[in-house]
């Protein structure tokens, strides 16, 4: 024996079905309402009742958290009935569904970009709408998410520096790129500071003969930092890094001096050997061993 709902579902009485669908919707029995709305949206195509029906249909999907289908229905509603009193709301809800579908910043952000576009389109279409402010807020939210991603991914290179020296250089570049991509990024100050640290670590872990230049770059970054952020909460840490850079530079210079001395000694030895060679024929020495790897 079929239930009343099943019987209705199978019947052809569209008007009754519509009534029942609305009743179910208002009763918050969305999954049952959806079954009827899906069926009716086909049958009511091209009829006057279709407008309200599609509006409820989209909302039913939204209530069921099927945001992908819901946003499609909201959008198609707004496209089909641009003059409807509900058009603005549908346009907004479509964009809002995108917003809800935007995942955590550490995943693919395709939906975030789409949500920003959709919300922006809403603001452009209805600049004076009450909802425009909310849409604006959501855009800020989503941009924040993109900023989080840019920041965290750039910082990752600094974190994983110990696994590969190149990651420190990558961190400096990625941090700079993130600032370029998001000029008013909320992490600007911290990023400026992290850049100094990354550059310092890069210099410190480089081959000795490359260190001096790279330390100097770290100093330049530090100077920029103090100029841009005179009273930063990272000032103390930055200062510490600067001290480390200076200590590092002294060490580098010492090492280079030692190296130069060694070279000198070796040269002297070569000259001596040559002298010997001038008088007695000896085996030639291998003079290429002095190359230092960089």
């Amino acid at each position, binding site marked *: 024996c079929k239930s009343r709902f099943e019987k209705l579902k199978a019947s052809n009485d569209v008007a009754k079905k519509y009534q029942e669908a609305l009743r179910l919707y208002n009763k918050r029995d969305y999954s049952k309402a959806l079954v009827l709305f899906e069926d009716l949206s086909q049958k009511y195509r091209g009829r006057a009742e279709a407008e309200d029906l599609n509006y409820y249909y989209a909302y039913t999907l939204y209530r069921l958290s099927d945001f992908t289908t819901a946003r499609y229905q909201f959008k198609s509603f707004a496209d089909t009935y641009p003059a409807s009193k509900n058009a603005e709301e549908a346009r907004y809800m479509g964009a809002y569904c995108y917003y809800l579908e935007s995942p955590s910043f550490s995943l*693919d952000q395709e939906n975030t970009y789409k949500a920003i576009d959709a919300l922006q389109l809403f603001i452009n279409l209805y600049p004076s709408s009450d909802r425009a402010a909310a849409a604006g807020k959501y855009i800020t939210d989503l941009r924040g998410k993109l900023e989080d991603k840019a920041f965290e991914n750039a910082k990752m290179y600094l974190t994983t520096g110990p696994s590969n020296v190149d990651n420190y250089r990558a961190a400096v*570049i990625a941090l700079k790129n993130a600032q370029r991509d998001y000029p008013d990024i909320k992490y600007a100050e911290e990023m400026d500071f992290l850049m100094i640290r990354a550059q310092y670590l890069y210099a410190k872990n480089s081959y000795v003969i490359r260190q001096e230049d790279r330390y100097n770059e770290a100093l330049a970054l530090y100077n920029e930092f103090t100029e841009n952020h005179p009273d930063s909460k990272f000032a103390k840490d930055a200062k510490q890094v600067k001290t480390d850079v200076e200590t590092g530079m002294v060490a580098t210079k010492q090492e280079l001096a030692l190296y130069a001395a060694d070279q000198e000694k070796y040269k002297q030895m070569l000259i001596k050997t040559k002298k010997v060679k001038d008088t007695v024929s000896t085996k030639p020495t291998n003079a290429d061993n002095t190359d230092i790897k960089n």
Partner: protein
Amino acid sequence: PVTPSLKVGGLDLDYFSPKEYIIGGTTVTGTQYLDKDVLITLSKLTKGDKIVLPGEATSDAIKTLWAQGLFDDVQINIEKFVQDSVYFEIEVVERPRLSSIDLKGISKSQRTAIQEKLNDKTGKIVNDNLYNTTSAIVKKYMLDKGYFFTKIAYSTRKDPNAENSVVLEANIDKGSRVKVQRINITGNKDFKAAKLRKFLKSPKQFAWWRFWGSGKFSKEKYEENKVKMMAKLQEKGYRDATLLKDSIYQYNKKKVNINMDIYEGKKYYFGNISWAGNAIYPDSILKKVLTIEKGDVFSEERLNKKLNGGGENGGDINSMYTDNGYLTFNIDPVQTKIYGDTVDVEMRMYEGPQYVNNRITLKGNTITNDKVVLREIRTKPGQKFNKSDLIRTIREIGQLGNFDESKTVPTPRPNPADGTVDIEYAVEEKPSDQIELSGGFGGGRIIGTLGLTFNNFSLRNLFNLKAYKPLPKGDGQKLSLRGQTNGKYYQSYSFSFSQPWFGGEKPVSFGVSAFTSLQSNGLNSDDGRLQKIRLNGVTVSLGRRLNWPDNYFQLSHAVSIQQYILNNYDGYLFRNGTSYNINLSQEISRDSRDSPIFPKSGSFIRFTIQATPPYSLLNKTNYATASDREKYRFTEYHKWKFDSQWYQRIAGNLVVKAQAQFGFLGQYNKAVGQSAFERFKLGGDGMQGFDFLQGSELIAMRGYANNAVIPNGADPRIAQQSGSPIYTKYVLELRYPVISSQQATAFVLAFAEGGNTWNKFGDFNPFNVRRSAGIGARIFLPIFGLLGIDYGHGFDTIPGVSEGGKQNFTFSIAQQLGGF
């Protein structure tokens, strides 16, 4: 002379005095399915029109109707004259239409292939033209397949399903497939005909000894291969070589001959090779990489290989540049001058700027977090662009196991303005979790197993309910849980967790695992006859990738504590007591396999040492007189294991796998004797089955039963229960993939194995092995892991073991790949 005249209805139609009439009406008879009005319109004999009779209008009408090809017969009759009006009757005999063609006498695959070509014929009229075109199509197809003497007989039958339709039955007598008696080659000077025939991969001419291979003639293949044959000549330096003409003619009913007339032309050699446009590398270096010298035989193929490579290993000029940042590098060898038999080549190069990696982005990771993938990517911002790194990265992403390797696509986007390149890696997530759920019948009771493996777990989100979909995912951690029980007799539970980047700074993996298992005869604990063994254990491990000697190496350390509690339990060196095994193991491995599931190249080598502290050397126990309880309280041993696997593609997708394994369990102190635990059990499926206890190591060997391969002369009861201290095993396997898609990977294999166990190192002889051979199949399904079945035949009988230790079929489920 009598004037030709036509008398119709008493009226005389005189050809010399045609008369004009008005058409009073036209009727059509004999139609079955055609529309009468359409036919009248076509005939142009429309009511009310004027017509001259006798005249051309009536004959034109007949011609037009005939031209439709719809009729077997068309007649136009004058029905009657009424005053000035004439009434016509068109009488037709309709032809039936074709509803389908039924091809008989050929195989199903041939039928489908031909049907496809004949599709547009349905709905047409069955006439001579149809027969002819159908015959042509069928014959052409059969000719391509090597049937030269196809005969076709047609018959029609009414189609019961459609009106006025017939089914055309084509009875095809395909005759025999012809072979080639002789291939005559003329015009060749430098190449012997035999050599040229060798270049022609198919067909091969008849030879009495060619009993394998079909030797059958396929025109399709011949057409394809004759082009390749000429290409081969060109590759050998004969760049003018052409096939002047070729013909195929009948030799006898089953054989044809082929005549080929070729023009060899002369052999060309490389002349001067000059370089243009190179600023980075001097000519001398480029020359060294090119390895083509003036005077070498001219071969475009060889030239191309050296310029643009073809393999992934580099060694070509293109890789030299693209691995050093010259992303937009381009080289074009231009043959500038041809004189006599010499070709001068100029290498025109565009080096372009040296690109530096800038933004490295990831796309398509809908489950896995950015950093899990980004930290594995080898192309880093600030480095020079390197194509080899790019390719290696695809492999590394594949090894994470969360993405479909074939869909990992890197897209470099160069910005010529500032010499940087942004690289986007597009990935596609694939299901990576595995579930093992089984119920079986063992030891007279039902045994149930539940195993879950999550390969992309996220521990930090364990308490974040939002991240559950359906489990916290995305951090690339691995969690597995497994439980197996049949109630009182046997229980085993295990858990393991591993994190690939412990601490997030370095690729140091951290793992922790624990297990507990129990086997007993099911009696209550207060029953004196209770026999029971319980094992508990915890292992903590750390592993890290090395950059030296190369970056395929990995080093790992593990500390493990195990407890064995025996209660009247037979099969070990003691029956009652508790034993502890505290050991440290070190492992070094090198894995360069190109794919985790079906490797086609690369190798895997692993060397492990596991050792316990040498208690007997530290304490003052007299082991010669000590009780079992004292003697075995702390298990002591040192264990050495070596495994090497090697994969090589030999032809097409056919891959050979060679593997050698060796294991040795040694003792510190003779008085203590060999450890009762941690021994090797050889034979069978190597799976953690019902009789599995973690106190030993299981080594699969197909063709023999589980644990059956015991040392010669050993007591089967003990040796099968506790295992043996020394083993070696060799495998040679041929593998061929049958399915390779995201949903499943499957391959078939043929194997030969040899392996044995020994009790004393003095007896050890790596060549004295028990042998087996057989065939099998494996299928990898993302959710279930690797499932396998093998049929093996053991050649050697193992004395003392039931049925000689042999077992033909072995099944394996989710067996660790490359495991011991």
